[in-house]
């Protein structure tokens, strides 16, 4: 091998080696890099019940009720659902049918949240198009 080929091999080895090492590391970390637990994960006992954790899912249509600053709503991943209680201001993007991530803990089966963040999806469109799509569905 020439000197240049040697260097090339070294660089290649460096890149492949680190990518491999970090991929393995990440696999080992597994779900710990997840920002929140889905209702199903909580139902399966994967979430640290008794401590604070984050629960994320879609707000069920028709479940949102509000009295002053206190609001209640149900969150689902289409398999399991949890009722959420939250006192405070909701973000602009909070809507029924949209994703939310709540932080709090389970108290007698109800998730009492101290923070509610709204998640938005990857679809962007003007209101007219959204209306038309909604009509076409009905």
């Amino acid at each position, binding site marked *: 091998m020439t000197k240049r080929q040697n260097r090339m091999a070294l660089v290649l080895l460096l890149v492949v080696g680190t990518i491999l090492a970090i991929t393995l590391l990440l696999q080992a970390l597994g779900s710990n890099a*997840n920002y929140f637990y889905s209702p199903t994960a909580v139902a399966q006992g994967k979430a640290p019940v008794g401590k604070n954790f984050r629960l994320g899912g879609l707000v069920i249509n028709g479940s949102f009720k509000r009295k002053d600053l206190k609001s209640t709503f149900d969150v689902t991943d289409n398999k399991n659902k949890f009722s959420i209680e939250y006192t405070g201001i909701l973000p602009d*993007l909070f809507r029924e049918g949209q994703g939310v991530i709540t932080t709090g803990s389970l108290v007698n089966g109800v998730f009492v949240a101290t923070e509610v963040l709204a998640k938005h999806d990857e679809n962007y*469109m003007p209101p007219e198009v959204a209306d038309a799509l909604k009509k076409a569905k009905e």
Partner: protein
Amino acid sequence: MWKWIQAFASPRNFYQISEKIIPWLMVPFIVLSLIGLYWSFVVSPTDYQQGDSVRIMYVHVPAAWMSLFIYIIMAISSGIGLIWQIKLAYIVAKVSAPIGASFTFLALVTGSIWGKPMWGTWWVWDARLTSELILLFLYLAYISLNNAFDNPKTADKASAVIVIIGLVNIPIIYYSVDWWNSLHQGSSISFTKISMQQDMFIALLLISFAFKFLYSALMLMRARNEVLVREQNSRWVREIITGADK
């Protein structure tokens, strides 16, 4: 072709040719920016969920793309530098770093400004945001490592290794929203689908191409500065500098 590349890669030719190229990058940058601004403020519609705040996307997403793009350019030119010992390749990597860091900073801050009204928070430690922050640290690590050595040759090599190791962060940033639950939403634009209204996409593309031209122009300008300093003992630099005021 190879001969041509080698000829261009000689510092002297690079210095002279790049001077002629820069205006041809600045003009498209300015034109595309103006059309892009018009498209993002006037032509593109409001979003059905986010209203007008969606307009932040037209700087946020192109800046985020640039942060990845410039890093990949740096890694490739560092690799070329290590393998073929081309001085100019190291210079490209070195002068790109502050530009890349700036775009990463912009992506993070505009994202934060967008996140506050929409998500309800300036910052969360989810996989996408955290990995993009790590990218900023990688840029800063590269810059500080490069400045740590007095000998430019050692600096080039050491920082090239850092940038190549950090390359692993790039797919992590890109796929973070698919691999893990995150607050940040998934990609709207991928190789197979575009989940975005047409005028929104056009605004995004216009600014994105404007940024590419801006980067190319800035990179060449900075590379010329660097070439002057590194080649200061050669006769052609002396001629250019001392002849410049005649």
